């Protein structure tokens, strides 16, 4: 239980001149939900492809279940359930064919569970995959990823482009998966309210680097929005220290800090300012503050 299920060390990857991953190190514990968040083009899909053996590490190492997924695809992949971002499924198959085809690859396949899922998701066994709507396609992909009760469920942007009903199915699937002992979910998303609901740990991937990797509660409680009133007007907020970002002008500033309340009070008193309020932040706001980050400037977002 204590062994990390996925261990990535100093992974680097570039496509031609574009650097996709710049020395990523990540250790994902067994059991629980791990949320990988980042903007579009941050490198999330590239990272996930490395874990599946679809990309080989140009430098650094990837170990999943202690195995190298490139060297031992069968050992690694037979314990992974994967839902890709573009719901890559063979259009020409019918649903029942898709199920019986996928079943043959996984010794742990549970046919009754597959049938339950099929009925819950309302998938017509005779329908061609080509004729499915987007939401139904996602459900079909989810079915074949879940039915063999994988030790690790990897979802790449599972909710993108889906209606709220299908999104609930996906979240429900994530929760049911980890409610079973010892199973793990790794999902990448930029729908942060979903990540907030289900993730135990999160990592922020920004411009190919891991900005932050911590338990969800720690991230949530660690970041606070502080409304200040300065005694003297400034055009630029003095950078550094506990302040990660924020905005404002002259006297009134709304800043984001990563610190305990005591440390915040101290820092504010050093600035000769008044605290108007200290509020918790949603994951959305935390993410924006951490990744939009440049120098703090007057008037605009930093």
């Amino acid at each position, binding site marked *: 239980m204590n062994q990390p299920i996925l261990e990535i060390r100093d992974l680097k990857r570039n496509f031609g001149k574009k650097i996709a991953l710049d020395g990523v190190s990540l250790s994902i514990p067994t059991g629980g939900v791990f949320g990988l968040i980042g903007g579009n083009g941050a490198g999330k899909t590239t990272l996930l492809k490395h874990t599946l*053996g679809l990309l080989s590490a140009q430098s650094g190492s990837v170990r999943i279940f202690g195995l190298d997924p490139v060297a031992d695809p069968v050992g690694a992949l037979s314990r*992974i359930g*994967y839902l890709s971002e573009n719901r890559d499924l063979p259009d020409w198959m019918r649903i029942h064919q898709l*199920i019986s085809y996928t*079943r*043959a690859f996984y010794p742990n396949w549970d046919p009754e569970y597959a049938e339950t899922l099929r009925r819950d998701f309302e998938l017509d066994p005779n329908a061609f995959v080509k004729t499915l709507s987007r939401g139904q396609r996602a459900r079909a992909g989810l079915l074949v990823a879940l039915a063999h009760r994988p030790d690790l469920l990897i979802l790449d942007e599972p909710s993108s482009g889906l209606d709220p009903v299908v999104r609930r199915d996906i979240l429900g699937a994530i929760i049911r998966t980890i409610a079973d002992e010892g199973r793990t979910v790794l999902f990448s998303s930029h729908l942060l309210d979903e990540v907030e609901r289900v993730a135990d740990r999160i990592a922020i991937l920004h411009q190919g680097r891991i900005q932050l990797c911590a338990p969800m509660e720690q991230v949530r409680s660690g970041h606070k929005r502080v409304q200040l009133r300065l005694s003297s007007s400034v055009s630029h907020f003095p950078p550094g220290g506990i302040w990660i970002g924020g905005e404002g002008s002259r006297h009134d500033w709304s800043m984001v800090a990563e610190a305990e309340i005591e440390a915040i009070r101290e820092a504010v008193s050093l600035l000769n300012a008044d605290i108007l309020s200290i509020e918790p932040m949603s994951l959305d706001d935390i993410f924006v503050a951490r990744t939009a980050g440049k120098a703090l400037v007057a008037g605009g977002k930093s």
Partner: protein
Amino acid sequence: MTRPIQSPSVMAISRVLFVDMIRRSWFVLIIGFVGAFSLPFLILGVLKAKGALLVDDPAMILIHFTFAQMMGMCFGASVLHAAGAPSRLYVLPLSNRAIMVIQMVPATLMVIGQTALSIWILNLIFGLNWPLLGNALAFGMIFANFQSMMNLFQKSLLMLPAMILTLTLESFWVKSRHGPIFSLPTQYWTTVTLMDWLVFAFAMTLSYWIGMYAIYRSRCGNEIQTSLIVYLSNLIQELFGKRTKVFRNAGQAQSWFEWNLKGYVFPVIVGMVVPLTPLFWLFSERKITALLEVLRVEGWLLSVAGMVSGLILGNMGLSDASIGMGQFLGTKPLATVSWSRILLRTAFQSLSLGVLIWAIIFSLVLWGGKLAGESYPAELFPWWYFPAIVLAAWAAMTFALCVSLTGRTIHMKILGGAYCGWLIVFTTIGNITSKWIAELFYFCALSGFGIALFLLTIGIWGVAFRRNMVVLRHAIVAGIVLTGLIGLVGWQFSNGLPLPTNNHGITPYFLLVSGLLSMVVFPFAAAPLALAWNRTR
């Protein structure tokens, strides 16, 4: 043909969609081109080497006619697939007429252009003077008719009789421009007369109106449907659709996948061409020896069909636009080596079925002829003929399989270009340089090519061995098989060269054939390597 387009926006959209068509379907277009070009090059090249390429010989007319048909069909089929359905244009702000024009005109021009260009290139390289215009326009016309009919009757059983009727009428007309309809072609279609232009115009206008009607009905979801076909398809679904296959293991499942998706291509190609050959023969001439000769050549042409099918078999991509392996297949827990074996087995099954079809037709004609009292010269079918065509088809199919299995778009395009370039150089060298340089070139090319293939095979086996994709046992078997084959060839050659007369001597041919034979064992090492290269980038 149609009137010129007035609206500039339609032109702009047309251009963009044309580029899009090429980008989406480059794979199919390349296959069509490669398939269409290889046939004439092969045959004309051999004839030329034999010294039998007499430009003014009346026998050339039949060859010209056949090639024109083959090329027209190949290009037509691939462009038909590439053009796609007009339904993707329905949401754009275009009138029905604009859609019709965008759908029909670029594709038709492409077919005409490709046909004319290929004949022109053949003329250039082999010093022929075959006419371009007649056949090119004719195939454009046939293509346009085919396309509009497909759009109109796509959901209806009427498609079959409509297509057959059109095809028959128009092919008879084309045949009639080459001489009497029910015998061998006797003339070239050198001048396109006013009557011809009128026929073209009429057929294109008919295409246009049929196509317009098709779009008119299908744009609002009101296609022509035969209720019978709907009823039948529901019935079939009821009876067979619900049956769930149970696969014992991953290998079985993947074999089913590969066969269902791609395995049928080779037998279908063979099945569409070979059984129809006696039919065409009946219309042109009725000597059995001629038919047998044609079937004999078709035996060799199985390699070309094999090459095309191999390219398709190795395509692990999601669509025609990308041949790299998609994530669905890439994440299946199936070892690369097992997978490559499944692919080779599918190729073998595919090949066997196609060869069987050919063999059946061939035997029927052979024994039918014997019963009718015909007698054949012994050298028509030497003992090595049948094994040779099977091995050649196998080598071609599996080599193409390995090429497209790599899933590397750029490499494939380069290879395709190199292949065409090589064909052109090989056949034109005699025209450009002096005789003795050409002789030297042929000597080096043939020997060098053979040696290169042999070394390539050894090299690939070495790499595969080092990466544990093959074991010593496999290598030993491969070595024995190859040695045996080369030994047989050497023995046969020493008894006399059953090949075109030449000044090169036996050696280059021996080296060439040995090299080609090594391609028989090449794929067993190359396929897993190619697949691994595709799967992990």
